[in-house]
């Protein structure tokens, strides 16, 4: 391991080598999961991007008779809600919200997590101790409750929701990156860089950081999945951005109609499920392909 060549920026270290070592069966299973996941994600992204074209105008406007079941009226393939709004339009417009919050929250968690992980792993000692204690704190407390409190205090906007979700999710990334950074720090090329007189900043940025990112690739897509789920829970509890539409708030709004029109909750919930499933499958697939020795999937 200690003789592996350093990679300079770009691709996180050793992804190609890892792929070559993956046994055939696992590669097959991994690529199938990856394919299904990518297809699901592509569909959701396509819907999100074309929502404005397919359904121009405000999806909150009344479009037809209230409470039309899906498949009854050709104009409304997914039916209408209790106020006569087109379910398909509302769901299409919600796709963008979920993806935005999910990805923004994941980016924040990645940024904080990778920074904390690399610093803790590279410097060790007191820096490591302090950062890991903080990450333990975040892993101990009920993070959904913490997120809820932050959103209540800051007010529900897309930005505050993404922030509140992302800020609770970074410790898992920090721990993964730290473990890699600890390993990388001991490798010969880091010693060589020290001998050449490189400063901490350059060593971290050029050598430790790019070579510690491999496990993050898998974790990132799981992170987006979890963030979308948290966002859905928040909107279901009435803490969504009041200016936007979201699947979670649609489920919440359809709840009183459960007895007579359960499709109003079933459809948006199904959309959340498929989107999250897409990201999970991508994560699982990548895990099978890139980490052939981890038994858990």
């Amino acid at each position: 391991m200690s003789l592996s060549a350093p990679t300079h920026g770009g691709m996180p270290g050793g992804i190609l080598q890892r792929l070559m070592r993956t046994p055939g069966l696992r590669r097959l299973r991994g690529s199938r999961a990856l394919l299904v996941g990518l297809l699901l994600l592509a569909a959701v992204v396509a819907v999100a991007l074309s929502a404005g074209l397919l359904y121009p105008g405000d999806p909150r406007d009344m479009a037809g008779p209230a409470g039309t079941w899906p498949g009854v009226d050709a104009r409304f393939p997914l039916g209408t809600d209790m106020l006569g709004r087109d379910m398909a339009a509302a769901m299409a417009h919600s796709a963008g919200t979920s993806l935005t919050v999910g990805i923004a929250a994941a980016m924040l968690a990645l940024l904080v997590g990778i920074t904390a992980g690399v610093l803790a792993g590279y410097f060790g000692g007191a820096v490591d101790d302090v950062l890991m204690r903080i990450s333990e704190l975040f892993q101990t407390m009920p993070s959904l409750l913490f997120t809820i409190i932050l959103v209540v205090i800051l007010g529900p906007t897309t930005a505050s929701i993404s922030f509140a979700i992302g800020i609770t999710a970074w410790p898992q990334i920090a721990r993964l990156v730290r473990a890699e950074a600890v390993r990388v720090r001991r490798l010969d090329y880091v010693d060589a860089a020290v001998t050449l007189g490189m400063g901490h900043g350059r060593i971290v940025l050029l050598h430790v950081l790019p070579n510690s990112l491999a496990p993050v690739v898998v974790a990132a897509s799981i992170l987006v999945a979890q963030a979308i789920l948290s966002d859905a829970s928040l909107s279901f509890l009435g803490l969504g951005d009041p200016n936007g539409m979201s699947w979670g708030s649609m489920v919440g709004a359809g709840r009183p109609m459960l007895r007579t029109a359960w499709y109003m909750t079933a459809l948006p919930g199904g959309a959340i499920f498929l989107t999250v499933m897409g990201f999970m499958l991508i994560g699982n697939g990548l895990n099978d392909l890139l980490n052939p020795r981890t038994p858990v999937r």
Partner: protein
Amino acid sequence: MPTSLRYVFRRLVQALPMAFAIVLLNFLLLKLTPGDLADVIAGESGSATPEFMENLRRLYGLDIPVHLQFLNYIQGILHFDLGYSFRQGMPVGELILERLPATILLSLTAILFALLIGVLLGVVAARSRGSLLDEAISVVSTMGFATPLFWVGLMLIVLFSIELRWLPSAGMVTVGADYHGRWDEWLDIGRHLVLPAVTLSLFFLSIYVRITRSAMLEVYGLDFVRTARAKGLTEARVVVRHVLRNALLPIVTVTGLQLGAIFGGTVVVETVFGWPGLGRLAQEAVFSRDVNLLLGIFLCSSFIVIVVNLSVDLLYAALDPRVEVRQ
């Protein structure tokens, strides 16, 4: 000092800063909230002259420096004084104690159910590794991670309460029920418990499946398992007595670590099923923007997580002598 005692001591010393950090975080969030207690009371009373506000701030110690306020805050917490919820008209501490038993009942039932089914599926998956059954269990457990709990709950209500009419859809007891004795009442609570507990258990079920499967696969190839087989033990006995036993330790640890997530789950699940616990209380607090009450719930549930994890670790040290060696 014997090593075991030293370990207990060290774990206690580790838990204290964590508890302090939670208290500090809670205090900071309280200070971050726009509007203080005086604003809330003045708002409720509808009369807010500057003198009245001044008096209120003096009365509640809000006119002294922040670090002294923090000391007062800690003192309050040590006496389980978590402030007053003006929206609910009750002290926060009392509200929480009143709701805690329902949440404990729900969480424990959900964890037990998840353990039972999760471990079973995990064992089956590990025993039939690589087969179609293993694959199917893995897909199902991924789906468990990907499904929003509130949605599962609502769909279960549609199926079991509305269509089939087997189980009640909300609450913990039947309103206006006339019970014939204790047993009757428990049975009623039990019937109300089924759907929320199953919903809450789903996420953990998926975790247990994965942990059990991987822990079993790790131990399967080891020498002591081969010895057990060579002794002529039945396969069931090998699995239960030797393999599963070793898988139990990670399962216990994960349960402790996921406790925080359970509290998150109860907020959503109790909201769906109108279950009168802490989670439902949190949702009511969200609805009325009662930050003080939310912070009280946050503080209490965090402490519960710390205490449970501490107990798990200590139990661990008692069960598995290797724990200390590794330290």
